[in-house]
């Protein structure tokens, strides 16, 4: 089926072919990618993404006991539920006016570090890397595979794979040796997680005020021995990643522009420092800067802020083409923060979620269950479409530039992060250096993920030391009793595995009056907002060059899939994206299915929710 559509503008004609992948697999949740491809110029001209799931957490949490919030919000995500539970505990601590005993903080940090180790490595090795495995590369880029066969792996002496093609084979699903070892490692790290937080993926032992984990020496010994085994694996993982991505840069000149977008990175910080953190909003700037992953916003390679209060005040939730009613004229829950700063009506504290299900209209009407989180930059007046770089890229970038983390095993330098790993069964000590890259693109998002696994493992060595120091002194207190106030507000900031996570809570009458979690995926995959600013995926995919050797008939879309997966999409958190513009005349050809969607007449027009 083919149709032609004309749009405003006088750009030269392009022949575009419609291509769709729905659902995108090897991610968490349900994502569909709809593109228009210019095969003559090997470029993606247009991209829409859809996710069609609404569950209504913010709706059904109203009126519930606030102490239930972390149990409930954990269920938002089936791979990083504990990040939600932890963030909710942080927000509750603030609302209840309590700090956790130091040992409890170390236990949380150890649990969350294990989560990063588990989640990043299963995602990288068992989901992302399948896009780089022999089975797929053979289908999409046979000549690249031939070259990989001839290319020796630079770190062969460390990881044992002689050529790049040997690495590719090691990641074939289920049969590849590294694939299977990684699955096994994902179990080891989950056992470490369970030692601290009880169960994976929805923890059992977290409570506001602390944890129920019994702080015996054995718990930490069991963790440490597994950690050392895992570090042995990390020492192979990082060079394997470096070899693969460096090969892509070398073999496919121009690959650095795949998935590239302007450097607009957000990180909300991770791993509290109990010496500083008191969960008071008034002191949040200082305890935020004491975190062992530094919160920050990086724009065009410059660190804009590391202040969690600044970060909090700038959050805005804009509506795009979403199935919701606006809340501009709804209730104001928080007019001023505890420091007296005004809180915008579009801030999560003041959001009222009113779902309005209706027919999907990909041609300019509502088609999304997701809104568009943005960060309002007071200095420029812009609503910045920050992304998380899949999590690790923003975390490492912010931490490196801020130069505030100086621990025995992990050290920021101002332009890099140095990670020191101890001797393990198959190798001696190893120092890894992650350097701030030139661009934010698909390969650097992926590379950062491997380095952050090492970062989390090395930080965990420090956390075990700090925890055992307490236990050895006989301090095993892990919980601080509290009262739920009749009214209060709280906010929690954390890093979910795939990036920024915030929870905003308002208590009235001792019950939840408002609760809005903002996980990474709405940031990364948001649609155009009311100002016409596209979301990060849209930026990254639109105009992207293609290197796949197949034509339209057997096109797999591998470069697009690599880009989407580099952000570590996690759709239960909700996502939608839409890219408009760029084309004048298009020829419709739908190889995947027989239908085509009409094109928007004015793709640059601001999106306005349409009601039934």
């Amino acid at each position, binding site marked *: 089926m083919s149709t032609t559509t004309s749009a405003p503008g006088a750009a030269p004609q392009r022949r575009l072919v419609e291509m769709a992948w*729905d*659902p995108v*697999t*090897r991610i*968490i*949740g*349900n994502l569909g*990618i709809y593109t228009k491809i210019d095969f003559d110029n090997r470029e993606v001209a247009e991209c829409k993404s859809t996710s*069609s*799931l*609404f*569950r*209504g957490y913010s709706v*059904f949490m*109203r*009126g519930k*006991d606030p*102490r239930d919030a972390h*149990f*409930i919000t954990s*269920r*938002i*995500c*089936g*791979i990083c539920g504990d990040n939600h539970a932890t963030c909710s505990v942080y927000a509750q601590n603030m609302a209840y006016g309590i700090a956790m005993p130091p040992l409890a903080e170390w236990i949380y940090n150890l649990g969350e570090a294990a989560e990063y180790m588990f989640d990043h490595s299963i995602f990288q090795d068992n*989901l992302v890397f399948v896009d780089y495995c022999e089975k797929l590369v053979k289908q999409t880029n046979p000549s690249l595979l031939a070259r990989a066969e001839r290319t020796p792996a630079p770190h062969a002496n460390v990881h044992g794979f002689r050529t790049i093609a040997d690495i590719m084979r090691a990641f074939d699903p*289920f049969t590849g040796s590294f694939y299977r070892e990684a*699955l096994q490692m994902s179990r080891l790290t*989950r056992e470490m997680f*369970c030692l601290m937080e*009880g169960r*994976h*993926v*929805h923890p*059992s032992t977290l409570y506001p005020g*602390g944890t*129920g*984990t019994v702080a015996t020496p054995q718990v930490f010994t069991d963790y440490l021995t597994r950690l050392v085994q895992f570090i042995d694996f990390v020492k192979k993982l990082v060079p394997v990643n470096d070899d693969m991505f460096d090969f892509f840069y070398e073999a496919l000149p121009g690959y650095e522009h795949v998935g590239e977008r302007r450097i607009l990175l957000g990180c909300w910080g991770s791993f509290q420092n109990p010496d500083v953190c008191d969960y008071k909003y008034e002191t949040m700037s200082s305890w935020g800067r004491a975190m062992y992953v530094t919160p920050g916003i990086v724009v065009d390679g410059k660190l804009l802020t590391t202040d969690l209060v600044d970060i909090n005040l700038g959050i805005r939730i804009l509506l795009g083409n979403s*199935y919701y009613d606006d809340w501009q004229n*709804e*209730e104001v*829950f*928080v*007019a001023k923060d505890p420091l007296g700063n005004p809180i915008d009506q579009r801030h999560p504290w003041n959001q*009222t979620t009113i*779902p*309005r*299900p*209706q*027919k*999907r209209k990909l041609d300019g009407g509502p088609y999304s269950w997701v809104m568009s989180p943005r960060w309002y930059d007071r200095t420029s007046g812009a609503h910045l479409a920050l992304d998380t770089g899949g999590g690790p890229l923003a975390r490492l970038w912010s931490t490196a530039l801020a130069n505030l983390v100086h621990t025995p095993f992990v050290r920021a330098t101002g332009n890099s992060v140095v990670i020191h790993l101890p001797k393990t069964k198959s190798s001696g000590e190893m120092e890894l250096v992650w350097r701030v890259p030139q661009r934010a693109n698909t390969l650097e998002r992926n590379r950062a993920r491997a380095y952050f696994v090492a970062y989390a493992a090395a930080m965990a060595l420090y956390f075990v030391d700090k925890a055992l120091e307490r236990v050895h002194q006989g301090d095993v207190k892990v*919980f601080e009793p509290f009262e739920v106030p009749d*009214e209060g507000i709280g906010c929690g900031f954390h890093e979910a595995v795939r990036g920024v996570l915030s929870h905003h809570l308002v208590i*009235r*009458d001792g019950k939840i009056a408002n609760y809005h979690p903002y996980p990474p995926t709405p940031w990364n995959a948001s649609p155009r907002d009311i100002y016409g600013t596209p979301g990060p995926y849209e930026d990254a995919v639109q105009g992207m060059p293609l290197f796949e050797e197949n034509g339209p008939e057997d096109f797999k*879309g591998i470069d697009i*899939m690599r880009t989407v997966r580099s952000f570590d999409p996690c759709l239960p958190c909700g996502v939608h994206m839409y890219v408009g513009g760029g084309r004048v005349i298009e020829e419709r050809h739908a190889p995947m*299915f027989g*239908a*085509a969607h009409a094109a928007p007449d004015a793709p640059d027009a601001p999106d306005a929710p349409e009601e039934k």
Partner: protein
Amino acid sequence: MNQDKPIEEVHILWISEGMSCDGDTVSMTAAGQPSIEDVVLGLIPGIPKVHLHNKVLAAETGEDFVRPFRHAARGELGPFVLVIEGSIPNERINGEGHWSSFGVDLETGEPITLNEWIDQLAPRAWAVVAVGTCATYGGIHAMAGNPTGCMGLADYLGWDFRSQADLPIVNVPGCPIQPDNFMETLLWLLQMATGRAPMIPLDDRLRPTWLFGKTVHEGCDRAGYYEQADFAVDYNSPRCQVKIGCWGPVVSCNVPKRGWMAGVGGCPNVGGVCIGCTMPGFPDRFMPFMDQPPGAMMSSKLVATYGKFIRTMRSITARTLDKEPKWHHNGPALTTGYDPRGPRSLVGDKYAPYGGNSGKEARR
């Protein structure tokens, strides 16, 4: 059973597009007894060759991934086990909209709802498995006040549903599933397929009896403290947690005994109160989670002398918790008590500390 000869090859069609978090799929990858790769690679004796179609683990993407599901819906695939993850939304209450979908219609380009897939696939499936508490009984997304009217698979298909192999729906609850509980259930079904195992034993809530036939309390290593009436008063303690929120005495689950994975972790055994996440009444009948369950006071006082009486009282409580709330249904109206602006019992100056208003004025 409608089965003449052993099945040599079987497909597992796993749809996680219910109202889910994909946590059961993720949890399944944690299992070691058996592991998913052992099953897929045929390393466990006595089971058919398994073709797994699961979104999180699939190499294929897009239409390549959906194709076997379409074949199955047309009756063109060999025998398959349908695994449903996530609660089933009520798609009768939202006009032309949808709450959840999986793939698109090849003719119209419209999203295909989960419900349409279930209607097509369940009657053709050799066996149907509901994985996790959302799919089994509605779970967290079916909480009071929810907007989607969602429910469990048996509420949707009917509790008397029978598959091609004349099996009821097999429910493996847990939020998420204990990894090995699920894989062991799957293994039993695969052994049934080759004629090596008898009919899977299920209770009246369709749970495998050997996994869910005992209470949390009966397998908990803190039960000894209970016996001595030695109770924790806050979460700093290794003693019995029934006074600080644990529902273990009346919840059907083997986690404290089995651990979470490889014997590590769990719930009350490692300091996490049992919140009843395997139960049909979860979460509503267990909230607020951190309060002492009603009845715990009496039973914990009487424990020393009235064991038999307590067992009777507990069985009454357990029967209540084994029921889903009445708003889990596929009727044409939403009855969850949904109110996006409520509840709001207070107005006026009380919100002065944060400068808020009640919203009444703002909306006017």
